[in-house]
């Protein structure tokens, strides 16, 4: 297969002509240089062994050559699309992004004290944190479309979830590069949702970076719902840094997209920090979904729980690579990691690789991965109770994933995830009545 390449002059021109404040122009240029040094990741790099970004590079190049100054048209009014996807009356502060651009009109005006939400491009100082990330993070920085910063003061509490709906519209190929920053002060708490979706025929490459910084005892729930249209690509990266006793619960669901890569990079830097990474992917057709996680235990008595489950159909392919690194001095670390997969067709393929490196004492670490089919005895049991075979199969598949959803602390978001999963499985009407 051909290695992904990009014409650097085209890219440089695009970066130089993008609008924005001075700090942003500098930031884009710095990011650009870092990207040009590294280039698109290739399958020769261990972290990208199974995921070839050539189609992404090609789309990016076509988009760059199409217009001297990439300005993207948008499709039908985003508000109606948002309504279709999220539905009315959701109990959340909803903020809309359309093709990577923040709809400032959608910013909530009723946030509680100590909670602020600012468009990234309006900041007069660089609000971008210390995260350097990889080449794709650099590319996100170079082509930064827009972004948002959520700041929680010490002890501040966000009353309702912040629901970021990031939509892609329009059939023209384009790259969208938003960035989301979340800073939670001591003892602050909030629930944040990133929901990626769009018009069914949208052809976009979304390259998004989310950067979370949690001070002592801050508690966050982060939900990532990925339902990109079937001709779209997505590369996303979540960076989180947790101070002492901070807690982060992540839920990630991949249902859409043609080529998808998500990295969750978590650093537990303070004593007793805890992270839970819950992941689900359901793939069909020729989808390719690659989840990479890395948890760095850098302080004593830190806890990580990781549970990713996948259901693969048709000729789809999934990758799971989870690395847990227990650094010297991180004594008393407690880490558990699991990846389980259901292969529902012979053409589907999964590559799963848990990795564990330990340089500390008194640690409790476990990891495991399984790849299997639906349990025949369970199937027979359900059929022997009168359920037809199709319903029994769907029910077992759903049950396999539901265990993960059951960990959602926000009940309404848990129900939303259930409905999304049921919608991703065939004959969902029947299953939906079972909830």
């Amino acid at each position: 297969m051909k290695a992904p390449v990009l014409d650097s002059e085209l890219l440089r021109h695009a970066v130089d002509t993008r609008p924005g404040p001075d700090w942003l122009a500098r930031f884009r240029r710095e990011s650009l240089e870092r990207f040009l040094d590294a280039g698109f990741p290739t399958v020769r790099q261990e972290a990208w062994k199974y995921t070839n970004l050539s189609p992404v590079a090609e789309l990016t190049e076509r988009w760059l050559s199409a217009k001297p100054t990439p300005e993207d048209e948008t499709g039908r009014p985003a508000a109606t699309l948002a309504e279709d996807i999220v539905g009315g009356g959701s109990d959340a502060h909803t903020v809309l992004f359309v093709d990577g651009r923040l709809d400032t009109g959608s910013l909530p005006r009723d946030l509680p004290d100590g909670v602020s939400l600012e468009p990234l491009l309006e900041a007069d100082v660089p609000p971008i944190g210390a995260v350097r990330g990889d080449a794709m993070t650099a590319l996100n920085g170079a082509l930064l479309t827009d972004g948002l910063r959520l700041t929680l003061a010490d002890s501040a509490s966000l009353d309702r979830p912040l629901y970021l709906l990031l939509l892609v519209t329009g059939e023209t190929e384009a790259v969208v590069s938003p960035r989301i920053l979340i800073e939670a002060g001591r003892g602050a708490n909030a629930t944040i949702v990133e929901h990626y979706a769009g018009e069914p025929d949208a052809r976009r490459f979304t390259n998004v970076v989310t950067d979370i910084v949690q001070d002592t005892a801050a508690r966050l729930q982060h939900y990532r719902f990925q339902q990109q249209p079937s001709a779209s690509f997505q590369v996303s990266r979540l960076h989180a840094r947790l101070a002492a006793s901070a807690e982060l619960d992540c839920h990630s669901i991949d249902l859409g997209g043609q080529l998808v890569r998500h990295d969750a990079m978590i650093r537990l830097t303070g004593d007793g920090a805890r992270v839970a990474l819950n992941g689900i992917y359901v793939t069909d057709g020729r989808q390719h979904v690659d989840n990479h996680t890395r948890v760095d235990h850098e302080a004593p008595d830190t806890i990580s729980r990781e549970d990713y489950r996948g259901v693969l159909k048709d000729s789809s392919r999934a990758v799971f690579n989870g690395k847990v690194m227990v650094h010297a001095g991180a004594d008393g670390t407690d880490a558990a990691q699991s990846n389980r997969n259901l292969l529902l067709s012979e053409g589907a393929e999964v590559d799963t690789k848990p990795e564990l490196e330990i340089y500390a004492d008194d640690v409790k670490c476990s990891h495991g991965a399984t790849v299997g089919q639906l349990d025949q005895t369970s199937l027979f049991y359900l059929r022997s109770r009168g359920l037809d075979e199709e319903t029994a199969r769907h029910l077992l598949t759903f049950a396999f994933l539901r265990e993960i959803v059951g960990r959602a602390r926000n009940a309404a978001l848990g129900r939303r995830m259930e409905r999304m999963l049921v919608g991703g499985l065939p004959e969902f009407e029947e299953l939906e009545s079972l909830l």
Partner: protein
Amino acid sequence: MQPLLEIRNLHATVEGTEILRGLDLTVDAGEVHAIMGPNGSGKSTLAHVLAGRDDYEVTDGQVLFRGQNLLEMEPEERAREGVFLAFQYPVEIPGVNNAYLLKAALNAVRKARGEPEIDAIDFLKLVREKMSLMQMDQSFLNRGVNEGFSGGEKKRNEILQMAVLEPMLCLLDETDSGLDIDALKVVAGGVNSLRSPDRAIVLVTHYQRLLDYIQPDAVHVLSRGRIVRSGDKNLALELEERGYDWLREVESA
């Protein structure tokens, strides 16, 4: 009168090994039959073949259930027609709610009988009544199917399902295994409550113990895939006393 269940010359294999070798059995409505026999005699195979497990291949013979060819039906059709198998090892299915399964199963059966779906209130009333019969706490309803249940709780849950579904033919596969005496009494009570003139119960068991609490009308001894002796409940007592060793003499004779 047409028998409820009629098995003629049934042969079945598992992975090429013949387990049932010409089994004949007739069960009339209203009767309780016990099928006893040593390990490996084919008792569980018989129960699973009747319920439609496809790991077993029927190579010869016929099974008529209320005059219909049972072997041609899918497992779910058999269930809807009124065949129920209480599993020896009930499966744990986390993520599928116990109450949901009960309701879905009941509605599948009702639909086949031409009855409307049961409404939520009637369902709950029915299930509560049956749960109290099985001395089960209501919290079991909202748990995953058999998830984290003890051995005894799983068996009680099987009988609960049976009591709710009211099948025509109840097959109990070693339901007494692993039960302490109190649990055994509860399970037997549940089974006895289902005795009725138009229903038949077939108990597959290794030990006579269960038959102290559920009095059978007929006892059959299964050995090497065939019924080698039939009698009344005294046959079970005889087996208890003599063990199964004498069967070898019968076989070799």
